[in-house]
């Protein structure tokens, strides 16, 4: 049914479709496009930082615009839509419903993203993805800042709409025979991440409006010159975006829960502990936002409260890791490309989590805050864990979407390059942070350690780049010329899959898939 290429249709039929697999396909293509755009920006940044002095980018303003667009693109235009893509493909099938609960709303949620992307990419604001006032109020050039604010506003509404859709689909449209406890863990991951979005996102929506009126001079919420408090913005922002970290990571964990048992040829070790860990994570996600703000002059008491809140999230994450490893135990594991990405993702997930514990230990924040340590730490999460899970899942869905197999050898090469590149890049960034290099700087003095480590990081980024070029070539070539896949069991594992093609797409007509 989802064999989009085996049964070519006019493109407008896909574009104006509200069927969940068509919307999922658009989400997927758009998010991969955004990944390559954002990746190109990252490469430009790394080329610039390869050595002290101007390399590729001639002025700091361009650099500042690029890192802002890179962060915004990767988080809002790659990771969130790619999770929605997977959810759109699989959640209705997992709860045995014919479509998402509100198909039109689903399509609207997707179609809000491209205009928002246009606003972000054409505007190129310069204040970092965090848009911290008063810089963003009094100093950031217009109209880039306004375009960013409107773009983010649309993206926020879009993610709220798609979250409503997921929650209603899972809670209300699941098959009557299926209890909530029986919903597969991928479904559970979308349920919990959607609930986090619904609880967290309105705060940021309010903060954005306040930021906009501040910029227009109509108000002074965050502008100290007229009596506002910039720290209030930090609270509002991080109240949304610390939980947002879990919004991104929980679906990726859900994808690993789909891949790992399948390729280990064993059922998941404990479904209930996975569910419990998702529920705990979605609650404690709200207990830790201000650990991003230790350096703003918080009191000892406040810091302690948020340190405890942050540490509380660790056991639940550890439960997931345990569940993965216990599932692989005594299995007969086939290391096809998706499984490699999932296992590599678990390894880097641990490293990222350990770095997070160090960040939140109050005095150590004096070492790591806003240094390259933080950059390395959260890239281990967003690239090492979330993007690894997502890319693995793209390989996993590839035969269902195109009816053809990707090239396994090049898939493995892609994984090895990305894993090695990620280790070189992001672990070195941790050490560079310990040597005191601040993040978001366009140029740096010739301190010998900084120079050599920056060069190494840029080399690591190039290794990832080579992997990603291979990925792109593999996707394009294999979707047109790859071996036809055996859709009963494309990976040769035996057993039942959640075949997206078990669902009929009305556009394929009678006798279609």
């Amino acid at each position, binding site marked *: 049914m989802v064999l989009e290429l085996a049964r070519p249709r006019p493109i407008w039929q896909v574009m104006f479709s509200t069927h969940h697999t068509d919307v999922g396909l658009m989400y997927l293509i758009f998010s991969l496009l955004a990944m390559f755009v954002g990746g190109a920006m990252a490469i430009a940044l790394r080329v610039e930082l390869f050595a002290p002095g101007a390399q590729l980018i001639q002025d*700091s*303003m361009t650099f*500042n615009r690029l890192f802002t667009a890179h962060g915004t693109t990767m988080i809002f235009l790659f990771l969130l839509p790619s999770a929605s893509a997977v959810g759109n493909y699989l959640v209705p099938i997992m709860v045995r419903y014919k479509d998402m609960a509100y198909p039109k709303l689903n399509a609207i949620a997707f179609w809000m993203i491209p205009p928002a992307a246009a606003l972000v990419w054409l505007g190129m604001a*310069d*204040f*970092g993805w965090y848009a*911290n*006032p*008063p*810089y963003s109020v*009094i*100093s950031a050039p217009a109209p880039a800042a306004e375009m960013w604010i409107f773009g983010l506003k649309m993206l926020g509404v879009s993610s709220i709409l798609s979250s409503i859709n997921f929650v209603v689909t899972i809670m209300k449209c699941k098959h009557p025979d299926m209890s909530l406890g029986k919903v597969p863990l991928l479904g559970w991951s979308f349920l919990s991440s959607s609930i986090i979005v619904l609880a967290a996102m309105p705060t940021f929506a309010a903060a954005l409006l306040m930021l906009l009126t501040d910029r227009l001079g109509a108000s002074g919420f965050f502008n*100290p*010159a007229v009596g506002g*408090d*910039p*720290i209030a913005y930090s609270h509002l922002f991080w109240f949304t975006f610390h939980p947002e970290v879990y919004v991104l990571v929980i679906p990726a964990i859900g994808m690993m829960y789909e891949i790992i048992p399948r390729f280990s040829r064993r*059922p998941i*070790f*404990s479904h209930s*502990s996975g569910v419990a860990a998702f529920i705990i994570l979605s609650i404690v996600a709200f207990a830790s936002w201000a650990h991003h703000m230790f*350096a*703003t*002059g918080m009191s*000892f008491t406040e*810091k*302690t409260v948020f*340190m*405890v809140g942050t*540490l509380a999230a*660790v*056991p639940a994450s*550890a*439960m997931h890791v*345990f569940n993965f490893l*216990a599932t692989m135990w005594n299995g007969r594991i086939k290391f096809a490309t998706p499984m490699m990405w999932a296992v590599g993702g678990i390894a880097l997930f641990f490293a990222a989590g350990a770095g997070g*514990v160090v960040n*939140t*230990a*109050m*005095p*150590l*924040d*004096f*070492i790591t*805050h*806003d*240094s390259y340590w933080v950059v390395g730490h959260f890239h281990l999460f967003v690239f090492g864990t979330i993007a690894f899970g997502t890319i693995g899942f793209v390989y996993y869905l590839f035969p269902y979407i195109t009816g053809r197999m990707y090239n396994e050898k090049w898939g493995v090469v892609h994984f090895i390059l990305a894993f090695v590149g990620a280790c070189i890049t992001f672990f070195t960034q941790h050490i560079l942070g310990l*040597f*005191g290099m*601040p*993040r*978001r*700087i*366009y*140029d*740096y*003095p010739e301190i010998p350690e900084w120079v050599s480590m920056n060069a190494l990081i840029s080399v690591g980024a190039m290794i990832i780049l080579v992997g990603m070029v291979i990925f792109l070539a593999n996707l394009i070539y294999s979707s047109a010329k790859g071996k036809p896949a055996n859709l009963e069991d494309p990976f040769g594992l035996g057993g039942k899959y959640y075949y997206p093609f078990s669902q009929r797409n009305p556009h394929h007509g009678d006798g279609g898939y």
Partner: protein
Amino acid sequence: MAHSNWAEWIYLGVVTALLVYVGAEAWNVERIIDHAPEDAEIIKVTAQQWLWTFEHEDGTKEVGELHLKKDHAYKFELTSKDVIHNFNIPEYVVLLDAVPGRVNTVWFSPNEVGEFDIQCREYCGLIHYNMRALLIVEDV
């Protein structure tokens, strides 16, 4: 599927115990470094795009350079004139935001003679990358 979960409980116990230890240690160190000695000299630090101004207790002002005495306690009172900056001496692990409209304090006592970097660690615009100053610790 039949399985026992004792291994998971033991594992969770170990993880939790480690976290409690980490939290307690961090709390203790933070408590130790939190309070400045009584005789700490107050230095008013004003950040603005994109330079640092330092005012000693006796009223002398320095721009872009800070002269301090070895083995003497100093308490920085940080504030900013425009946007948020972050006062950072990486060598001495001193780090705190300079927020307009607020005064944040952090203290330290330099125990080595020499020249050290002061830098801005919070993104503050065009020349953020070069918002640097020099800390000169002198023997008395």
